[in-house]
């Protein structure tokens, strides 16, 4: 994961590097095919591992007979959950299920029970992937089928129900609020199980050396998470596990979970060979964590002026076979764009015999936003108000409280909404029948956990910046740009390498839109420390006091004698002979990333005879705080929008009667193709984030959040039908149109 950036374009405003469209550091490797992704590895003696998965959605495993598989020529080893020391050593405990290694072990290889169709049961290592796959089919598993909990509606809240946990948020008195309302809208809405749809399947290669050191090459959003889980599951110290990151071919939250690494390690231990495991696309769909399906009920009231007087929000999210849905993500953000005095929010985490869900871009928030923003649109209609006007009427501002009770820091959602309202798209005429326009806005809050970084000054005046934060979409560049800004260098002169777990301090997973912000803070801190050390070195060479050295635009000067002048590069060349190289390691504690806001305007056309939705025009709005790389920010907005459109219209897990996933290929799991989308216009506004020296806000996730509702609202305005279930597939729209016709 290393490369250098090329080409710079002039920065704007107070910045020289930040805000430019510099060429991405990893770009050349990726356009030439040189970048090495999860499966792009081979080595001598390599074996290939394959997994056997359960055909049953819920069953007890009576026995597993691997003898026939082991007898197949070419097979070198077989593993089951019994090979995980943690399975034998610790009882299953669902508290903290999301990060509990015992639960992770159970998901990776089923022990005693299979909990969903596609649940891994055993794994084989063989001399070729074909032999390994053949061998998995020779493993005999004796199952005793159990009752399958399919729906997981969360209706039953009694003890012994399938509700794993409950979150409640309350403010004011909702009954009183509804009493003040002129208009009340109540809706039940639901969303489907969806997959992150990354194009690169999970892949991991592990080598267990005779001395007990385990090396893992893997595609993951967090190498330290892989290390922690693997060492816990295998019962070995973390220091014995080294995780080397490969390029990640898309994660979107899905690759924050782990499935293969400990299995490949166990197979390597058993065979004495390195073992590579790569999932098929079918395994990705049936064996990894999709995003949650949800059922939601919303009741919102507003007075005649448009003030929202009360909101009641009930959410039940399907966690899948183990607790840990993203319901809190929805419960804590859905009403976030609105300042509401009275609300009651109840979120339920519901288990059922489906894949254990994982995060998916702004986990849990799209579902909730779909519910709230649909109801807001309906409220506006009932009140005869412009939907953006209603939003502006209730807009949150600095000092108002988030649904969690935390006060908003400096924000300007009003500016975003007004930008939408005055945008030419919003007032452009919509000509022709069956066309409609929808809007929605979204809030996402971000936490923070701090980040370490190491910086070295090279003799040629470039910088090597070392981090452990996986780069999913360009953060090597955006982090390097922030260091370059401080040091007066070009972005390409800061060479950022993402290294393995032995080479850098514990670093958090790339999730929560945090890397550009938090690793940026670390890069800035490291650059400032380098600047301080460099100034001291200049002072030493000039025989002046460090305070007398100034640094500006990449040049050191002495304020006592103007003749003394050295560029960063010149000084870097003199380090070796003036006391040695300059290096530093920093840890930047988080300042709290804070809120982000996004909005969408979309025009659609519906074919009333087939129910098909065509996206005619799309404009995505985002408050980026300060866009470090505007091209990348646009890319986040466009990609998120495309995913949201797929979620809204065409993507869904379909299950058989027996509870197996019926559509395990990209043929029937329909992510949008280039034909299904128009150009996606972007409008970036910049309300500086007070928690970041350059004003950066989180941009990776929030752009997907308003998409589902924006499209649904557009469909409503095109057809007069409120689509309260996703996806709005042609069949579903056709049915809704027929039902409407029957009513009329």
């Amino acid at each position, binding site marked *: 994961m290393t490369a250098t950036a090329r080409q710079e374009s002039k920065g704007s405003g107070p910045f020289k590097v930040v805000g430019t469209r510099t060429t991405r550091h990893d770009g050349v490797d990726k356009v030439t095919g040189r970048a090495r992704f999860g499966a792009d590895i081979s080595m001598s003696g390599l074996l290939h591992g394959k997994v056997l998965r359960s055909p049953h959605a819920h069953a007890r495993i009576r026995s597993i007979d691997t003898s026939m598989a082991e007898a197949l020529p070419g097979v070198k080893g077989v593993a089951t959950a019994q090979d995980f020391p943690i399975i034998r050593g610790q009882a299953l405990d669902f508290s903290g299920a999301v990060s509990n290694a015992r639960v992770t072990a159970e998901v990776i290889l089923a022990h005693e029970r299979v909990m969903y169709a596609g649940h891994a049961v055993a794994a084989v290592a063989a001399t070729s992937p074909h032999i390994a796959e053949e061998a998995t089919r020779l493993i005999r598993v004796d199952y005793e089928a159990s009752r399958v909990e399919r729906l997981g509606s969360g209706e039953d809240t009694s003890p012994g129900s399938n509700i794993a946990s409950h979150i409640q948020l309350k403010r004011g008195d909702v009954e009183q609020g509804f009493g003040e309302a002129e208009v009340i809208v109540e809706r039940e809405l639901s969303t489907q199980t969806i997959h992150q749809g990354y194009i690169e399947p999970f892949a991991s290669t592990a080598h267990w050396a005779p001395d007990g050191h385990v090396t893992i090459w893997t595609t993951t959003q967090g190498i330290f998470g892989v290390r922690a889980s693997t060492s816990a599951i295998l019962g070995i110290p973390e220091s014995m596990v080294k995780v080397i990151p490969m390029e990640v071919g898309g994660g979107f939250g899905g690759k924050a979970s782990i499935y293969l690494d400990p299995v490949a390690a166990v197979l390597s231990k058993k065979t004495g060979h390195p073992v590579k495991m790569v999932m098929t696309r079918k395994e990705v769909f049936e064996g990894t964590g999709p995003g949650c399906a949800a059922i939601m009920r919303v009741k919102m009231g507003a007075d005649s002026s448009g003030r929202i007087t009360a909101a009641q929000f009930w959410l039940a999210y399907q966690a899948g076979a183990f607790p840990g849905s993203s319901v809190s993500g929805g419960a804590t953000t859905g009403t976030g764009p609105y300042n509401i005095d009275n609300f009651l929010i109840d979120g339920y985490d519901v288990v059922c015999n489906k894949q254990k869900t994982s995060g998916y871009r702004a986990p849990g928030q799209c579902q909730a936003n779909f519910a709230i923003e649909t109801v807001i649109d309906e409220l506006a209609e009932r009140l005869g108000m412009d939907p953006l006007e209603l939003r502006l009427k209730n807009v949150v501002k600095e000092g108002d409280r988030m649904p969690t009770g935390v006060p908003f820091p400096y924000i300007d959602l009003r500016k975003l909404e007004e930008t939408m309202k005055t945008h030419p798209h919003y007032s452009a005429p919509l000509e022709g029948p069956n066309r409609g326009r929808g809007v929605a806005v979204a809030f996402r809050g971000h936490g923070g956990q701090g980040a370490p970084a190491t910086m070295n000054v090279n003799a040629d005046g470039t910088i090597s910046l070392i981090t452990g934060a996986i780069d999913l979409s360009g953060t090597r560049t955006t982090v390097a740009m922030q260091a370059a800004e401080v040091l007066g260098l070009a972005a390409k002169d800061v060479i950022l390498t993402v290294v393995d777990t032995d080479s850098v301090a514990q670093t958090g997973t790339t999730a929560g839109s945090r890397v550009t912000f938090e690793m940026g803070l670390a890069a800035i801190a490291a650059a400032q420390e380098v600047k301080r050390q460099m100034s001291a070195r200049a002072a030493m060479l000039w025989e002046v006091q460090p305070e007398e050295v100034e640094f500006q635009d990449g040049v050191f000067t002495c304020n006592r004698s103007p003749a003394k002048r050295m560029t960063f590069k010149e000084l870097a060349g003199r380090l070796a002979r003036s006391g040695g190289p300059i290096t530093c390691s920093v840890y930047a504690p988080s300042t709290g990333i804070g809120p982000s806001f996004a909005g969408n305007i979309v025009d659609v056309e519906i074919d009333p005879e087939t129910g098909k939705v065509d996206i005619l025009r799309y404009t995505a709005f985002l408050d980026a705080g300060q866009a470090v790389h505007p091209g990348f920010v646009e890319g986040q907005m466009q990609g998120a929008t495309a995913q949201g459109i797929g979620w809204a219209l*065409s993507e869904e897990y379909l299950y058989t009667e027996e509870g197996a996933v019926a559509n395990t290929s990209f043929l029937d799991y329909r992510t949008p*193709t280039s034909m299904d989308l128009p150009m996606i216009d972007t409008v970036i506004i910049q309300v500086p984030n007070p928690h970041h020296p350059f004003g950066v806000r989180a941009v990776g996730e929030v752009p997907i959040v308003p998409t589902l509702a924006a499209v649904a609202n557009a469909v409503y305005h095109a057809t007069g039908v409120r689509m309260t279930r996703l996806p709005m597939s042609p069949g579903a729209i056709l049915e809704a149109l027929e039902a409407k016709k029957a009513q009329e």
Partner: protein
Amino acid sequence: MQDFEYVAPTTLEEAVRLLDGNGLKVKALAGGTDILVQLRANRFQVDRLVDIKGIPELNQLSCSEADGLTLGAAVPCYRVYEDERIARLYPALVDATSLIGSIQVQSRGTVGGNLCNAAPSGDSIPALIILGATCEIAGPKGRRTVQVERFCTGPGRNVLEPGEMLVSLKLPLPKANSGAHFLRFTPRKEMDIAVVGVGASVLLDDARQRILSARIALGAVAPTPLLAREAGDLLAGREASEAAIEEAAKAARAAARPITDIRGTARQRTHLVGVLTKRALGTAIARAKEGKKP
């Protein structure tokens, strides 16, 4: 998938001999865009794949105003839709072949393979039916021909006996004042499987007002692609009017025997048969009127 023997004969005789596996599970391989996927999904296994692409007769593509179209079974889709003569004489075949999979798939996938795969949703099959194609079959007992609408016998099943293979498709020259169109409905615009596919061909009188004959074929609404004979026949002698088209659409709906599966409900499919039949007929009639007057 289990390994298999790969053979690439260069003559029909050799191919027929190799296809008759004497108890071995043998399949013909043309573009491979269906069979390799099915093998990997363990839908079935083979002991031998007979690659038929090296046989000259199967790569034949001849199209003329004298003899019509002869399409070798191993001719990939792109050769069909990039052929200017076919585009002029058989636009419905171009409609269908340019919808099958991606450009990548069309580089390999063949009309013959699409037919032999016998999927109810096979996009080229309704187009072949409305164009009156016949299948040239070679086998251990010699040659025979079968009307294309009788070729598929069920999902994934066809009339080929062990050792038999599809050699080519023969399409008669379309008459003057005729036009045809194939279209399908899919949730995505491309890269999808037909929820319903409909092909329609019409022959108009010299005044181009009256329909002399018509054929309508339906995909994905029965165990095999279906010739909706009655729907086409009721148009014979009728004005090419909206009312007539509406009636044909109704008859096509009646002919459909769809199931509900992950790609659509039976009800949705029946409805779409009506919608697409009207659209297919509309374009077929328009194409008939566009052609050069005889």
